[in-house]
């Protein structure tokens, strides 16, 4: 295993900037997730690390040595493809053994390490099968074993779970993460699924339009999003448009006054996480902001309930409450009081927003 460095990495196709000036360090054994909507440049970044795309600028370093201009077969990276890309004419054993054969291992070593890798993904009994005789989940694990068996410097995962059904996906997430930790693999995963990213990552990198928006832990991104794009993409937020009238005072387009933390005077938007909003039939005391509203829509989601509350003709909030026995649950049409602490709302100056 080795550390991975991306140094001002860029890729341009004509006038289109697929990746803009991405600089990232992935520590040895770290699980980094590149997260972003489709077309944000995350896959291109991954393909540049694997060597399938030549960058138009910057460098890729693995374990301190520059591999930017090395062909894919000279880089020691293990890539798990979204479609798994198992060789259909080779058995599971032959698929897994491929990387070892390319590295000129002795037949004895190939057999032993192939068996070991398949044991690691609990498929040792299926070595003689052809890929098409396996389920999607099994194929995915073969692809993983194939990428691990030659002890790559960096493990690369390209949306590895998107072809699995939801239930299996949850299991495999944990499985991959445990394996990665056990083997101490430096890993970069690409995904557009924020829940997957949050579950698996040591650190996340949110990308959009080819550039890194923010890099940090789950808590960093959720509690302190760098801009409106991150606040919107990671978790949910209600955005209220308006302006900061004076430091600490936000006035909505609909004319409501809200206390906030910081923000330069000028046009801005206020982002509030749904679960940070308190909701009560009686006026709330001891909170920074307390408003009255009417319940317009209630959606029951099992563990939690989403409540859409009209607070002015132009503004609506979404509050999320836990579904606990005995708790107050408003009905559509009820008048309610909502409130939140200033520190739970974030101000984004307009122009600093992403899209």
């Amino acid at each position, binding site marked *: 295993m080795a550390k991975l460095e991306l140094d001002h990495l860029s890729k341009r196709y004509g006038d289109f900037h697929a990746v803009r000036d991405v600089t990232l360090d992935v520590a040895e054994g770290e699980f980094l997730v590149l997260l972003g909507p489709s077309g944000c440049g995350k896959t291109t970044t991954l393909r540049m690390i*694997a*060597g*399938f795309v030549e960058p138009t600028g910057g460098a890729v370093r693995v374990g301190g040595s520059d591999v930017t201009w090395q*062909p*894919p*077969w000279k880089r020691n*990276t*293990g*890539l798990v*493809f979204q*479609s798994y*890309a*198992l*060789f*259909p*004419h080779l058995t599971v054993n032959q698929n897994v053994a*491929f*990387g070892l054969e*390319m*590295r000129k291992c002795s037949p004895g070593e190939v057999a032993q390490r192939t068996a070991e890798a398949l044991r690691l993904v609990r498929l040792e009994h299926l070595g003689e099968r052809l890929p098409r005789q396996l389920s999607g989940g099994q194929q995915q694990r073969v692809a993983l074993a*194939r*990428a691990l068996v*030659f002890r790559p410097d960096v493990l690369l995962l390209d949306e590895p779970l998107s072809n699995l059904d939801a239930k299996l996906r949850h299991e495999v997430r944990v499985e991959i993460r445990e394996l990665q930790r056990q083997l101490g693999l430096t890993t970069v995963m690409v995904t557009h699924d924020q829940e997957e990213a949050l579950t698996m990552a040591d650190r996340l990198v949110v990308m959009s339009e080819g550039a890194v928006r923010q890099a940090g832990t789950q808590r960093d991104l959720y509690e302190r999003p760098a801009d409106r794009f991150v606040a919107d993409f990671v978790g949910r937020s209600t955005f209220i448009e308006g302006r900061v009238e004076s430091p600490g005072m936000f006035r909505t387009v609909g004319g409501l006054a809200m206390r906030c933390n910081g923000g330069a005077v000028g046009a801005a938007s206020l982002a509030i996480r749904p679960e940070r909003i308190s909701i009560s039939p009686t006026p709330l005391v001891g909170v920074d902001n307390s408003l009255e509203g009417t319940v317009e829509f209630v959606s029951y989601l099992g563990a939690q309930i989403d409540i859409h509350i009209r607070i002015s003709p132009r503004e609506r909030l979404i509050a999320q409450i836990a579904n606990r026995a005995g708790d107050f649950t408003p009905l559509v049409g009820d008048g309610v009081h909502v409130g939140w602490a200033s520190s739970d709302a974030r101000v984004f100056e307009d122009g600093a927003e992403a899209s």
Partner: protein
Amino acid sequence: MRRTVSAMPAAFGTRRLGWWALRGAATFTMLYIMVPLIFVTWLSFFRQEIPSFPPEGYSLRWYEAIAGNDRFVDGFLLSLQLGVIATALGLTVAVPAALCLSRYRFKGREALNSLLLLPLMVPGVVLGMALYVSHVEVEIATGLPILGSLGGLLAGHVLVVIPWTVRLVLASLAGFDRTLEEAAQNLGADRWTTFRRITLPSILPGIVAAAMFGFVSSFGNLEMSLFLVGPGRTTLPIAILQYLEWKIDPTIAAVSVVQILLIGSAMLITDRFVKISRVV
């Protein structure tokens, strides 16, 4: 309610009618294809020399006659050699050409694509005539003995094989997932190893089918070959034609049956290894 009841048999009837129409059309087409083959086979067993119905009796004498006829035996051997070598040469052109056409976007790509199909679109007589004239010209200009040479004949057959092989290899490349190549390279295989270990085995059914069709088109070629054969060198179709100029006894039918069996069994054997129907 009444409408549903009355509408149902009507719909049912239309459906049945369609089913019968389909069966009828299929049967007619099958007969249309099979009847000549059946008659030829039947005829090859007639005892009498002049084909007439009903047969006077049956015998295998016409099959014996082929074995005793040097022109047929030599023709068969020459056609077999030509077919095998022309197919092999055709494939060495077709596989790289198809890879190039399917993977790269370059100037003149469409032109090259059409050029490789051209021998299929030009009538055989025209192709033979053109080759003949150019052989004459080249021979006069260079003094090399090209006219009527085995090399000249073989080159013509390669030309006939190429369009088939290019088409079929292209078709199998279209269904090939290139991510597999990236996977192999990621695992440490260079370009050549990737081609040998991954690409080639994946498109092998297409290549086998291409060889099959290439061989058949060379083996059965008459019009073009007529212009290119030299003295003492006769392909099987030409030997058949020449024989027919003098006789119409069932020997020809027997030769045809042998050909049908040969090509038919080649197809069946190939189909056991690769499903031709999946590629063509």
